[in-house]
C-alpha cells in the first residue's frame, strides 16, 4: 500500500494511503497532496539509493511520498 506522509512535529503523519485501483483512496490522496502543496510543502520521492526527486503531481505508482518543508541558509 502506498503512503503519503508529512514530516512534522509528531515525527511524521500519514495523510493518505492508497492502492492502484482504489479510486476513492486515490482521490482522497490526491486531495491531501494538493492541500499540503498549497500549504507550502514540497513532495519528494526516492528514486534509488542517494537520489530523490521533487514531484508536483501525486505519483500513484510510488511506495512512499514524503512532504517536507522548504530549507533555507541559516
Amino acid at each position: 500500500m502506498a503512503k503519503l506522509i508529512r514530516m512534522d512535529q509528531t515525527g511524521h503523519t500519514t495523510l493518505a494511503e492508497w492502492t492502484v485501483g482504489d479510486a476513492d483512496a486515490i482521490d482522497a490522496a490526491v486531495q491531501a497532496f494538493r492541500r499540503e502543496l498549497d500549504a507550502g510543502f514540497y513532495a519528494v520521492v526516492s528514486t534509488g539509493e542517494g537520489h530523490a526527486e521533487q514531484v508536483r503531481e501525486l505519483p500513484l505508482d510510488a511506495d512512499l511520498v514524503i512532504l517536507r518543508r522548504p530549507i533555507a541558509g541559516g
Partner: protein
Amino acid sequence: MSSGAHTLPETAGVYWRPRVDERRLDGQARIWTLTMAAHTVPFIMVAVGFFIVEPLSFPVGLISLAHAWAIPELYAKRGANVLRQARSRGRSDEARATAVGLLGDLVGHDARALHARTGLVTERGSLGIWLVGEAGAVLIRPGGRRAHCFCVRVEDPDLPPADRIAHLLLALREDEAGFATVANGAFTGAPWRVRRRLLEVMRPGIDAAVIAARALDRRPPG
C-alpha cells in the same frame, strides 16, 4: 544524487547566487586559504620582527602569535557550529523516535549506526562526502583534505531532531549543487580544524566522512 535535471525549488530564493559546482568550490577554498594567510602572516611577521629588533620584546611577539593562532580557530569554531544541535528538541520522546525511524528508512545501515552514535548522517554525493546535522552540513571534498561548512536548516522549531536531518537529506538528494547554493558558507579549511571544535560525541562523524572522502577519486563521475 540529481545532477541538475531537477533543480531545488529553494534556489529561486537565492537567484543572485551562482550555482555551486566543483570549480566554484575550489575557488572558495583558495579564497579561504588566502584570507587565512592574510589574517595570520602579518601577526607572525610582527612577532618575528620584534624579536629580531629587540629580543626582550618577546611578550609582544607572543601576543602577536596568539592572535595568529586564534583567528583561524575562531573561523573553525564557526564552521563546526553548523553541526551543533538545534535549540528546540522536538515535542516528545515518541515524536523523536518516530522521526528516527523515518530517517533510518532513508539511509543505509552504516549511516543509521553513525546517527545513533553521533546524531549526524553521512551521505555520498558527486561533490564529496556530506556530513549532515540538524542545522547544517559539512562537505568533505574528495581526498579528505578540505571541509566546506554550510549553515542550512528547516524553519520549524517544533520538528524533532531526526526530522530536521531528514529534511536536509532529502533536499540534498534532490539537487546537491542547489543544496550547496541555498546554504550559507560558514568556513572552508582543513577537516582537523573543524574536528577539534566539534563536540567529542560528533567527532566519529567527521572521521567517517574524511575516511570515505579519501577513498573518492578527484575526477567527477563520468
